C-alpha cells in the first residue's frame, strides 16, 4: 500500500508539474504554441548576459533575445521559461527537446554546427578571447606570457583556443582549470594565476566589478573569433527561420531607427517600405513562417531593438561598460548586418 502511494506521488508529480510533452521533429512552433510558453536555455548566471535577480526575474542580453522571441511567437515577452544550463548540459538540453532555443553565449563553430547537429541562427554578439593581467605584472602583450599560469574555464572553446595560441607562438603555459566564472575571478584576484582568459566581454564584466579596476588591464590581443549566437535543433527549419528572423528583426530595427519608443508612431506614419514590411503594415511576411503580421513589432516592443538591448544590459552606461566595437551596425563600421526583409 505504502509503495503504491509513493508511486502515485510520482505519477501525480508528473501530472501536476505537467511538464510531460511529446515532441516529434519538425513541430517546435506548434509545441510552443500549444504549451503557450517558450523554453529558453540560458546560462546559470553570467553578469550582463543572463542572471536571475532577487525576485527570480531573469535579465540580461541573452534573456532579452528569449523574451523577444516569446513576444514574436506567443505575443507575450513573459511567456518564457528560462532553463539554466551548464557548459556540459547545454547542447544535450537542446537536442533532447528540453529547450526550444539555446541562448547561452555559445560559440558558433564548425563541429557544433555539423557534428552536434545544432543550427546557429545568427550572431548576437561578436566576441573574441582575450587576456586580463594585473597592471603591476608589467606585461603589455599576450606574446610576453611565456611560462605564465593562466586561469581558464574548463569545457569551453576558450580552452582549445588557448592551447592553439600558445602552440602557434611556441610558448609554454600552465593552465589552472576553473569551474565557473566566479571561481576564476576569485583565483585571479588572489594572484593564483598571472592571467585570466575568457571572452573579452566576460573579461570586461569581471574587471568592472573589481574594487580597483584600474590596476588590471585587458591585453590588446584577441586570440580567437567567438561569434556567439542563439541555436536551435537541426531538422526544424521553420522554427530555425523564426529564431533567425527574430534576431534579424532586432538588428534591422536598430538599422532603420525603429525603437520601442517610436515604434507605434512608425507603424502609423513610416513611409520607408523596408520599415513597413518589418512592422507588418505592408506585406504579410509573418504568414510565411506561420506567425501573424505583427510578430516583429512585438519582438521589438519586448525590450527594444538590438541597440537598446545592448545599451540596457552590457553597454557603456552599465557597470559592464562594453563598447559596441564589432557589434556596431555595418553602417557604423561594425559587423551587424541583417538580411533584408523582403
Amino acid at each position, binding site marked *: 500500500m505504502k509503495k503504491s502511494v509513493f508511486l502515485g506521488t510520482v505519477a501525480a508529480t508528473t501530472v501536476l508539474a505537467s511538464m510531460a510533452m511529446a515532441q516529434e521533429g519538425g513541430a517546435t512552433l506548434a509545441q510552443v504554441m500549444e504549451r503557450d510558453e517558450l523554453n529558453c536555455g540560458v546560462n546559470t548566471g553570467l553578469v550582463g548576459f543572463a542572471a536571475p535577480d532577487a525576485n527570480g526575474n531573469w535579465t540580461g542580453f541573452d534573456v532579452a533575445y528569449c523574451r523577444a522571441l516569446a513576444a514574436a511567437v506567443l505575443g507575450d515577452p513573459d511567456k518564457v521559461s528560462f532553463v539554466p544550463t551548464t557548459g556540459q548540459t547545454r547542447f544535450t538540453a537542446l537536442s533532447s527537446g528540453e529547450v526550444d532555443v539555446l541562448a547561452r553565449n555559445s560559440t558558433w563553430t564548425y563541429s557544433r554546427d555539423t557534428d552536434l547537429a545544432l543550427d546557429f541562427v545568427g550572431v548576437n554578439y561578436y566576441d573574441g578571447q582575450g587576456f586580463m593581467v594585473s597592471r603591476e605584472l608589467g606585461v603589455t602583450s599576450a606574446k610576453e606570457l611565456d611560462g605564465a599560469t593562466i586561469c581558464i574555464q*574548463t*569545457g569551453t572553446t576558450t580552452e*582549445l583556443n588557448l592551447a592553439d595560441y600558445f602552440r602557434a607562438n611556441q610558448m609554454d603555459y*600552465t593552465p589552472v*582549470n576553473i*569551474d565557473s566564472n566566479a*571561481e576564476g575571478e576569485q*583565483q585571479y584576484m588572489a594572484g593564483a594565476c598571472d592571467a585570466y582568459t575568457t571572452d573579452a566581454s566576460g573579461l570586461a564584466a569581471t574587471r568592472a566589478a573589481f574594487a580597483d579596476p584600474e590596476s588590471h588591464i585587458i591585453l590588446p590581443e584577441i586570440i580567437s573569433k567567438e561569434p556567439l549566437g542563439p541555436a536551435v535543433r*537541426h531538422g526544424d527549419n521553420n522554427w530555425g527561420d523564426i529564431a533567425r528572423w527574430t534576431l534579424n528583426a532586432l538588428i534591422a530595427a536598430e538599422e532603420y531607427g525603429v525603437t520601442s519608443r517610436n515604434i507605434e508612431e512608425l507603424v502609423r506614419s513610416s513611409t520607408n517600405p523596408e520599415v513597413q514590411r518589418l512592422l507588418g503594415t505592408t506585406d504579410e511576411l509573418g504568414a510565411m513562417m506561420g506567425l501573424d503580421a505583427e510578430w516583429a513589432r512585438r519582438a521589438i516592443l519586448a525590450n527594444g531593438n538590438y541597440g537598446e538591448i545592448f545599451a540596457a544590459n552590457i553597454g557603456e552606461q552599465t557597470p559592464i561598460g562594453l563598447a559596441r566595437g564589432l557589434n556596431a551596425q555595418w553602417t557604423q563600421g561594425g559587423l551587424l548586418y541583417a538580411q533584408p526583409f523582403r
Partner: protein
Amino acid sequence: MTDVPAPAHAPFRLSMLVNDRRYRSLTFQVIVFILVMAAGWWLIDNTIRNLALMGKSFDFGFLWSRAGYDISQTPIPYTADDTHLRASVVGLLNTLIVAVLGCIAATVLGVIVGVSRLSKSWLFARLMTVFVEIFRNMPLLLWILIVYAIFTEIMPPPNAYRGDDPAASMIFFDHVALTNRYTSIPTLAMTNDPGSLDLGARITFNWATIAFVVALVGGWFIRRAILSHAQTMQDRTGDRPVTWWKNLAVMTVPSLVLIWVFGLHFEAPSLQGFNFTGGLNVSNSLVALWLALTLYTAAFIAEIVRAGILSVSRGQSEAAFALGLRPNRTMNLVILPQALRVIIPPLISQYLNLTKNSSLAIAVGYMDLRGTLGGTTLNQTGRELEAIVLMMLTYLVLSLIISSGMNVFNARVKLKER
C-alpha cells in the same frame, strides 16, 4: 521448514506452478527474468531509436581523435596533440593519485583524531569532537571550495619570492615554496642518469627507479629469510641470533649504494620568469582537493576508530594493565588488533566513498577522470552516451578493485574461528 514431500507419482498440473512450493520460486524467477529482459530490451531499443533520430551513433572512435586541450597535471607525458583516450588515462591517473594520497592521509588523521577524542585532555578531546562534527555535518563540496579558497587567499603569489628583500621566504632550508598556485617541492635528480625503459606509448620508467624497487623488494625478501632463519634457530636452540643489524643492512645498504652510483640528490626549485622551475610544482587544486577529502573522510574514520576502540571491552585493557603492559603496548598489542576487526569493514566503505567523492574535483578544476573524459572530452565531442558509460564503468571497476582488495585484507585480520 519441513516440506512434506509430494507423492512421487502426482501428475504435474499447471496450477502447481503457482501453488506448489517447489515450482513457485522457479515460476517467480522466470517471470522476473522475463520482466528484466523486457525492460532491458525496451531501454536498448529506445536508445537505438533515439540515436537514429538524432543522427548519432554509438561509437568509441572519438577516443582516438585529437584532444586539443591541455591538462595542468600530467603524470604521463601529454600534450594537446594527444588523443582523447590518452587524456582520459591522464584523468584516471589523476583520480588514482588523489584517491591513494587521500586514503593514506585520511587514515592517519582519522586514527589520530579518533584516539584523541578518547584523550584525557578535556580541551583537546573537545576540540577533536568539534572537528569531527563540523566536518561530518557540512557538505564535502563546501569543504573543497573553502580549502581551495583558503589556499589561494593565504599563500603568497610566486612573485612575492622575487627581489632582494622578498615578502615571502621558502621553508625547509630554501627547498619548499608555498605559493597560491602550487607547492613547489624539490625533485630528485641524478648526475649519472642510466636512461629509461621505454614501455611504448611514451610511458617510460627510469632504470634507476626500477633498480631501487628491485633493491627494496629483494631486501625485503632477504629480511624475511633472515627472520625465518632466526625463528628456526630459536626453536631449535632457544637462542635467537641477533638480527637487527643484518635487517638494517639488507634494507638500506643496496639503496645507499644505488644513491651513490646514480649520484642522487635533491634539486631545489628556483624562481624563474613567472614561476618556480626546477622543482616539482604540486598544483593547489590537487593539494586542496586532497586536504578537503582527507579532512572530510578523516572525520568519519575518526568515528569508526573511536567506536572500534570502545567496542573492545574494558576488561581487556584492565587485564593488560594487570599483566604490567604499558599503555602504548596495551594499545598496540591488545586493543588495536581486536578493534581492527570492527574498524575494517566500515573503513573499506570510507575508502570507496573517498574515491567516488574525488569526482568533485571539477569544483577546483583538478582534471580527474570526470574532468577529462566526463568533462572537456564529453563537451568537445558531444559524445555524452559513450563518455558517461565509459566513465561509470571505470569508476565501477575501480570500486570493485578497492573493495575486493580490502576484503582480502579483512579476511586476514578477521578473528579466526575454529
